[in-house]
């Protein structure tokens, strides 16, 4: 194979969709072509990093007060102890694994997102299919456990990612068209209102898988809005 390997073929290769002989051809070319080797490495690394993100979400820190209050086992503001992972009911036949593929342009954006998400809080880059596969963590006991710290860390990271993206948006308000900015703010207000409603409802019913799933979906939507806004800011910066 003397011609360069297309980005589409590289994505196929990373996804394991090619035959052994096709893979041999690609590996032979990539081995001798620096440009393709760089692209292939970037795609492989980014996809691997995205797949390594935990497919989980958890209740935001501020929701803990309400949940703990209802449980009557943890005083408000304290750190929860042992976490119990509750598997959500899943579809009888799980949807096929969603493919993650990139163009060269997207790789740069993915790197930014990965950087923002760091070790990963949400499955923001994995897409909606993972909703039905998500797990949600909650707790029932006193402060101090490792599991609780993990949950708390995860919450903290989610908040950190949101904060980072909001900071980018705030600093970039001046470069966005007024109509676009209004749209973004309205979208965020819509999602925040939905999240607030669900958090209140979770205070009354902290173990509701329906509410937890809705919360996770809205958190994901919010991250999507913020990501697109941050990308728009960066494109014009």
């Amino acid at each position, binding site marked *: 194979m003397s*011609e*360069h*390997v*297309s980005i*589409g073929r590289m994505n196929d290769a990373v996804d394991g969709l090619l035959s052994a002989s096709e893979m041999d051809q690609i590996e032979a070319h990539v081995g001798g072509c620096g*440009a393709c080797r*760089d*692209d292939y490495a970037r795609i492989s690394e980014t996809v691997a990093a995205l797949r390594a993100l935990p497919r989980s979400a958890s209740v935001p820190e501020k929701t803990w007060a309400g949940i703990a209050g209802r449980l009557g086992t943890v005083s408000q503001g304290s750190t929860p102890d042992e976490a119990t992972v509750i598997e959500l009911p899943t*579809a*009888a*036949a*799980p*949807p*096929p694994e*969603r*493919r993650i*593929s990139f*163009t*060269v*342009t*997207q790789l740069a954006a993915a790197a930014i997102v990965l950087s923002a998400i760091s070790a990963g809080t949400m499955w923001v880059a994995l*897409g*909606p*299919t993972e*909703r*039905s596969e998500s797990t949600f963590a909650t707790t029932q006991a006193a402060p101090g456990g490792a599991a609780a710290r993990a949950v708390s860390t995860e919450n903290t990271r989610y908040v950190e990612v949101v904060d980072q993206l909001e900071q980018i948006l705030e600093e970039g308000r*001046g*470069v*966005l*068209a*007024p*109509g*676009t900015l209004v*749209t*973004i703010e*309205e*979208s*965020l207000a*819509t*999602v925040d209102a*939905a999240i607030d*409603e*669900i958090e209140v*409802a979770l205070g009354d019913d902290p173990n509701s898988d*329906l509410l937890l*799933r*809705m919360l996770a*979906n*809205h958190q*994901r*939507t*919010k991250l*999507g*809005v913020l990501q*697109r*806004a941050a990308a*728009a800011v960066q*494109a*014009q*910066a």
Partner: protein
Amino acid sequence: MNGIIIGAIAALSLVQQTDTTFAVGTAELLNVETMGGSIQVGVWDRDEIRVQAEHSSRTFIEIDRGRREIQIESEARRGPANLVDFRITVPRTFGLELEALYGDISVEGSDGTVEAGTVQGDITIVGGRGTVQVSATTGTIIVDDADGQIEIESSSADIRVTNSSGEIYAETAGGTIVLENVSPTVVDVGSTGGRVHYDGAFEPGGTYFFGAHGGSITIVVPEEASASFNVATVHGSISSNLGGQVESLRSGQRHTFDVGTGGALVEAETYGGRIRLLRKGSEGANAPTLRRTPVRDGTEALLGLEMAFGPMFDMDHDFDFDFDFDLDLDLEHVIDFALHGHSETERVREPATIRR
């Protein structure tokens, strides 16, 4: 005096035409990026790409022809490019990556992969095979006759998918989602602030998830459908006429039931919105009308560019600045117009180079 200068500037800023056609060689992907203006892509059965563009004289079109990818960008010798309206014709199976920060994007008849993104503008994709990825902050997104993994993300745009198959994923914070006359095997769509409407097939073994918060979900179920339904709302309402009579189901709990022998799995969830399961042809089974928010006059696009880069047509400069600036930029274009009747400023680099 001032009026004369402005008149001169206007004359020199006449819309330019770029029109060039070239062979695609071994490339299989087209990437187009523009800050403002529209991108229209059509197809033909030739191994060539034709690029037609309208732009101001200070803007030129740069075409990088790589072995794998052809990249087209609008550039300006000084500062950002102005609005550019592209009309591009590509081989039918060519892959497309289209990005317009402020502007509409349309694709007609593609049999290749399509990726299209805009911050503000309408996106219309007719065709697309394999992967169709569409993203917009605001505007209306329409996908028709696509097949494959269809992924649509938006902040507030309304989304409409018709006559398509494969897997459909769609998410919007504030818009409405309509899927009509589709036959997908996987659907996963959700709107936080808008409505969701589905009128399509339920394939055996397929999975279909519909989510909304305060808006309604309407699922139109064909007579021949065979599916297991799993629906729930926290504070909304659920109604169904699948059994022949309109019946209401309790909120606050999950309801599961089969239609036919099962086969497909259909899930619908709302927080406060209404879930309606309707037989095709029932009252209320018609899809809602989507709003359109075109930016075709370019006003908002220009405003967006100005917000980002400062005034694009600033008349407040003194005489010397205006004169030097425009004369320097436009002289060769004026000559081009005089000699050729159109601008020759597209930059087609030979030999082909690969941009990374």
